[in-house]
């Protein structure tokens, strides 16, 4: 009876986006700390759980990752229903993946209107090697999209561990309306981090 009991909070997070943009990699990276260059196609849905313990509280992220192939769209409800946040992900080096976010967003919103949307660009490490004009164009486009979706915008690199933790911290702060003072990054060519005043 006198054994201290930890408070616990769990949040379900859905990862959605086109094939081969690194959803599963991000999940594995965050949950296990590994990064694997090899591509393994996700068949259906992946699920991982990550628990962070701080003092008296355990925060558990339940991460659901949907395969990017169109045939798995029928599993979208599994991922999006009851999610606290949905990460709409695209490949920063492929403009087409950003364009299809529109469709993903539309579909996911159909199932869950309350989830906090995030627009996450992956492979930032490859993105920085692109010509400046391309970077500029993609960044502007992504900002436009984020604004339309009322979503926070984050560029990340799983292989180089850029902004991976930040994504989940921002998710948590958004979920609980915590005041956050992490500095934003808005300049083209930098790992964009825009979250303040979004979606209010």
């Amino acid at each position, binding site marked *: 009876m006198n054994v201290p009991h930890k408070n616990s909070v*769990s949040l379900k997070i859905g990862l959605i986006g086109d094939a081969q943009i690194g959803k599963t990699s991000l999940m594995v990276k965050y949950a296990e700390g590994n990064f694997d260059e090899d591509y393994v196609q996700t068949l259906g849905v992946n699920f991982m*759980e990550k628990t962070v313990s701080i003092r008296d509280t355990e925060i558990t992220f339940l991460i659901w990752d949907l395969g990017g192939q169109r045939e798995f769209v029928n599993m979208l409800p599994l991922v999006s229903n009851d999610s606290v946040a949905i990460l709409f992900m695209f490949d920063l080096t492929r403009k087409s993946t950003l364009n299809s976010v529109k469709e993903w967003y539309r579909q996911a919103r159909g199932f869950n209107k309350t989830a906090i949307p995030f627009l996450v660009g992956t492979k930032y490490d490859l993105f920085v090697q692109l010509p400046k004009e391309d970077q500029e164009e993609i960044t502007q486009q992504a900002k436009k999209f984020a604004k339309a979706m009322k979503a926070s915008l984050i560029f990340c690199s799983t292989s180089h561990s850029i902004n991976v*933790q930040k994504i989940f*911290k921002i998710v948590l702060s958004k*979920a609980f309306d915590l005041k956050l003072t992490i500095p934003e990054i808005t300049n083209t060519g930098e790992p964009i981090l825009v979250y303040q005043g979004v979606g209010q």
Partner: protein
Amino acid sequence: MQPSTPKRSKGDWSTTQQRRSYSTPSALIFGSPEDTPASSSSFASSSSTGTTPNTSPQRPSQLPKSPSSPTPSRRGLRGKLASLTLGAAERVRSISGRIDDREPPVYAPPAQPLANPQESLMGWMVERNNGGTRPQQRHPPPRLDTSNYGVSAISNNGLLTPEQTPESSPIQPIHRAKGRTTSYYQTQPFKYTSSLREDPFIDRNRNRIKEVQELDFEEFNNSEDDFCLSETDVHSEFSSSADSTSSQCHKALRIPEILYNILSHVEADVQVPHEPPPQRRRPLSLRHAFLIYGDREKAHQAWERALKEEQTPTQQMFKGDGALHGCLLVNKFWFEVSRKLLYNKLHFCDSQKWRQFVHMSSDTGSPEDLITWSRSSHHRSLSRSTGQPNLHQLANGEAEMNDYFDTPTKLFVLHKISNAQQSEIDLLQHKIGGALEWLEFYTCAAIVPPLGLLAGGSLQKIVLPGCTKVDDAFLKLVAENCPRLQIADLRACEKVSNEGLVALAGKCPQLKLLNVGRTQMGHLISYRGISAIARKTQVNTLGAAGCFVCDKSMWELAWYRGHSLDRLSLNGCTLLTNDSIPRILPYTSNLAVLELRGCTQITDFKSIIKFKRYQERHKREPLIEGCEIFESRMREAEFQLEMDISREILRDCVQWIYAPDHDQESVRVKRKKVVPNFASTSRLSFIPHGSDAARKLAATSTRVESSSRHHSSRPSH
């Protein structure tokens, strides 16, 4: 001519054969023709039990056109039975529900030779039992039913050729055939066979049973049946139903032990009058209901229910005691056996019947006879004859009092017989008492159990709520005579004081339940009595409502009985403070019910809520009940607790967010295959109404919990 001969002895067969010649359209008798082939084929397969002595009227294999049944595969034995009790089919339906409630039925394989007689026996009992309540049918008149079956019974015993049989039966309405199919024999076999097989005494009687199995129908039919009720035996009112069919009863049913065994199953169904099982207490007000249930609609329902209960006094009808009384009417032999069973458990909830019972028993013999009356005779042969039973009395559930107490009475219950007199109890005490295990006078204010009822040493349960005359002297008597006492319900026995409890505690170490709750004279029960009980007995349920119980006695209880305590009812124990209940809870890990209505000094709700939460995490749901003030304070405390927790969580979250990012945190990682235990994460069951953040926090955590139960996917990556 209508087949209206109500009474027939065996000599009447000629008349039945005459009657048989009335031709009736078979379609009318036997329902829709398309059913017939299926049922007839199944008969052939299921009635392969050639050795089974056929006591019931029809031999299905020879009756291709016999009434069809939707459950043909079970039709065999049960079909025979059903035909015996054909008219009872509808009546059976009413009783079968109750019978079906018993333990999972063991299927009686058709090859079991004993299955048939027992089932047909059951048919008898059911038919007799419900004979009175059966609704009137237009045609044929009810009293004809059994004689009709008698006809077919005889026809099956070789006097008629099978081809003639269908026409032989008088018109039976189709709906009756339907009713037959719903009788429980065809769907719910009893467990009688199994119980008989397991019973050691069967071994002893194996020879007899064998003999029974080898019986020939002819012989059976022609043998003189001593057990048949002749018309002189039977009150004219019953003679019509007690016709010669009763004489067809199987020989197995004439073995007293077998019949006793079978009937004891009927008796097991009899409901002893009791108060309704303890449920949640009624809310004291609408507001209270709202506090308890937390849901406006539920609260309104509960409150309306409470109001309704208050208006209508809980006058209960105890059904089920009719079955044995019905068995009394079968024949003399059955009468003997069922009477014995009836006297095993004596219970009255009707003061008129109680009066009658007392009257009858006081008629026989002088008081000296009663006292010196011997108990050793209960192993006497059951088939010995007694005087002519007065069937009219039997019908009312009463029996004559000759030496009927030759089996020890184990249970004696007077339920709300407020005008029972002490002199009546005193008169009967030595007849009833001696081997009692359960003695209950439920709100019979004027009487106290005399010594004779307590004697014997086997008494385990004394229930005397509202017997205001019960006092310490009585408890001392109990203590001296009932060393095996386990349950002592002395609610509202307001003369009982510490003195009595000390005596009881000293001599009844097996005591498990004690209830001395009261509304007056609470000062008579205090530390001295409770501590004696706590120290010396195995008490796990204590009712001390309205007593002057102090913190010290609660500590004593927790110390000696701690983890075995199950229920504590301390309503109105105003002396209790925060120094006891909230602090003993860590030591009473199995406490399931804690009633604290009116304990206004207890304000440390945090400990109580912590206890409740802890128990809930361990899949136990303790019921902690208080009055309106208590509940509202408890809600408030719960809310405060939730807010504290939320604040803690948010504090920790912020700390984590501002901690430097590092890829390898000290974390627990689970892969897909591990199904997370969401029950343990359901920390926030109560949604606080405080800050936005807290509310959101609680909402998300519950939402996630509910969602994640149904994750199913194709795992791979």
